[in-house]
């Protein structure tokens, strides 16, 4: 059940290239929260009125050096709301609504290897997810793409915990080009293994990953983004087209039926 709390920023760290890690205390919220669920975070008295959606990046236990009962949000400054968030010092008050949305679903059996695909700030939900999967499934294969090396802020963390391949648009790190290229090569190589895909990133990347998975008959969960006003299902602002039974196209809410959706259900 979501709660609406006011809490203090504990840390707000500049990771470079406009990427930041926000930390706040929310032990009760964190207790029942699933990776790829999200928060609506607001800044009381600021120039923006609507809260912004952010995935949970770190849950208790994800980053072992972080204090007990805290959660972390990884965000990128892209506009007014994220710029205001980056201006907050420890002690500043924020309002947090969560946990919201559905979250990633585990593979059906312990032999299935999770394949993780992250595009830029779409890497945010994966630390909590990798921690949750740890030791219960084979080590994940991970594909992490971004505009340039500066944006691969979690590369070291992922490299210690997954079989990581990176890609950048400018060639400053990893493969030069789209992350979907090393992904499709790897999937073709790993034909004998049972695999399940999880992806988060910009929409064109998600569409491509969904297609690649579909062509190979692999299950693929996509964590989507949408403009949101409420985050809890009432404004109907955040919808995506989905295929319902009988191929009829309708709209589902990213905040409630998502943000994680099966790639096969999307009608984009």
């Amino acid at each position, binding site marked *: 059940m979501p709660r609406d709390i006011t809490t203090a920023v504990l840390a707000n760290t500049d990771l470079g290239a406009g990427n930041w890690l926000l930390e706040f205390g929310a032990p009760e919220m964190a207790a029942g929260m699933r990776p790829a669920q999200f928060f609506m975070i607001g800044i009381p008295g600021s120039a923006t009125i609507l809260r912004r959606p952010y995935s949970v990046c770190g849950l208790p236990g994800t980053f072992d050096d972080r204090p007990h009962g805290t959660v972390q949000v990884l965000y990128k400054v892209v506009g007014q709301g994220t710029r205001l968030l980056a201006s907050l010092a420890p002690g500043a008050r924020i309002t947090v609504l969560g946990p919201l949305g559905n979250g990633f679903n585990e593979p059906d059996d312990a032999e299935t290897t999770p394949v993780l695909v992250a595009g830029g700030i779409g890497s945010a939900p994966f630390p909590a997810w990798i921690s949750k999967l740890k030791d219960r499934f084979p080590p994940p294969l991970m594909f992490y793409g971004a505009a340039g090396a500066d944006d691969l802020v979690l590369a070291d963390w992922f490299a210690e915990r997954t079989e990581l391949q990176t890609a950048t648009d400018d060639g400053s790190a990893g493969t030069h080009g789209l992350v979907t290229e090393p992904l499709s090569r790897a999937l073709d190589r790993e034909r004998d293994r049972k695999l399940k895909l999880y992806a988060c990133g910009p929409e064109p990347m998600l569409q491509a990953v969904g297609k690649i998975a579909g062509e190979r008959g692999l299950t693929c969960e996509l964590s989507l983004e949408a403009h949101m*006003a409420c985050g809890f299902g*009432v*404004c109907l602002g955040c*919808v995506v087209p989905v295929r319902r039974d009988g191929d009829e196209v309708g*709209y589902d809410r990213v905040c409630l039926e998502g943000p994680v959706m099966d790639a096969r259900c999307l009608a984009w």
Partner: protein
Amino acid sequence: MSGVVEPDLSVTVGPLALENPVLTASGTFGYGLEFEPFLKLDELAGFVTKGLSPRPREGNPPPRIVETPAGMLNTIGLQNIGVDAFIRDKLPRLREYDTAVIANVFGETEAEYVEVCSKLDQAEGVAAIELNVSCPNTEQGGMIFGNDAAALHAVTAACRKASRLPLIVKLSPNVTDIRVTARAAVEGGAEVLSLVNTFVGMQVDVERRRPVLKKVCGGLSGPAIRPLAVWMTWQVHEAVDVPLIGMGGISTAADALEFILAGASAVQVGTANFVHPDGSIRVLRELREWLKEHDVATLRELIGAGHSKAPA
């Protein structure tokens, strides 16, 4: 000091007796039940449902919303489950609560409005009907019902005949003189007027050089529209004799009181429900505190009091 006495917040809005003047606005409160995790529905005097049409509607393609200075634009496209599903799936649960369920109704033709109103008339647990007349009339080349006095008069009169429930007409602000459409609605049989619906506007994405919203324009709501909405409430209060329900950017007691002093007997909280799911209850509690602090025994004495010629 009489500060200890609990102020009387009850109001009568035409045929509706309400425990307090705070309602929630259509399209910002779902079908009410979505708010069960966040507030006690009984604490609200009532709420207005998402707009109901004869058949379910999927609404417009995304992006549907964007934040603007002190507000937001939306083009939800009146997505809703349809009146039959509302009566079958939502009303039975809602009847368990002591809160006035006001059904918001729209259609693309006069006949569609009438169809929804007569179905609601037969249902149990609906306190009133609110007509959303900010919809295009597909039989009249897409002209908005509420922007044309004659069409508004006709659709109001038809709905008046279709049900015995108290009839509220929700005025569109996208008109030259809102007093003209207000009078037309009253002459058509509206017992209460609510105002205002959203103002039409748009935002352009300068980087993409295209409109932000897929449908180009949308409805503006939130604090940005409050001064416009208060002024319209003020004018309509002077133009007609029926009670008014005011709305537009209310998120505090002071905001609500602006509308009440301008002539509204009750208010609706809209966009503020998105900012905090219990935004309406926050307004109600603040209002009670305000009355205590200002030694006002009954809220009713403030309705329209801003028009008084006596020195303040």
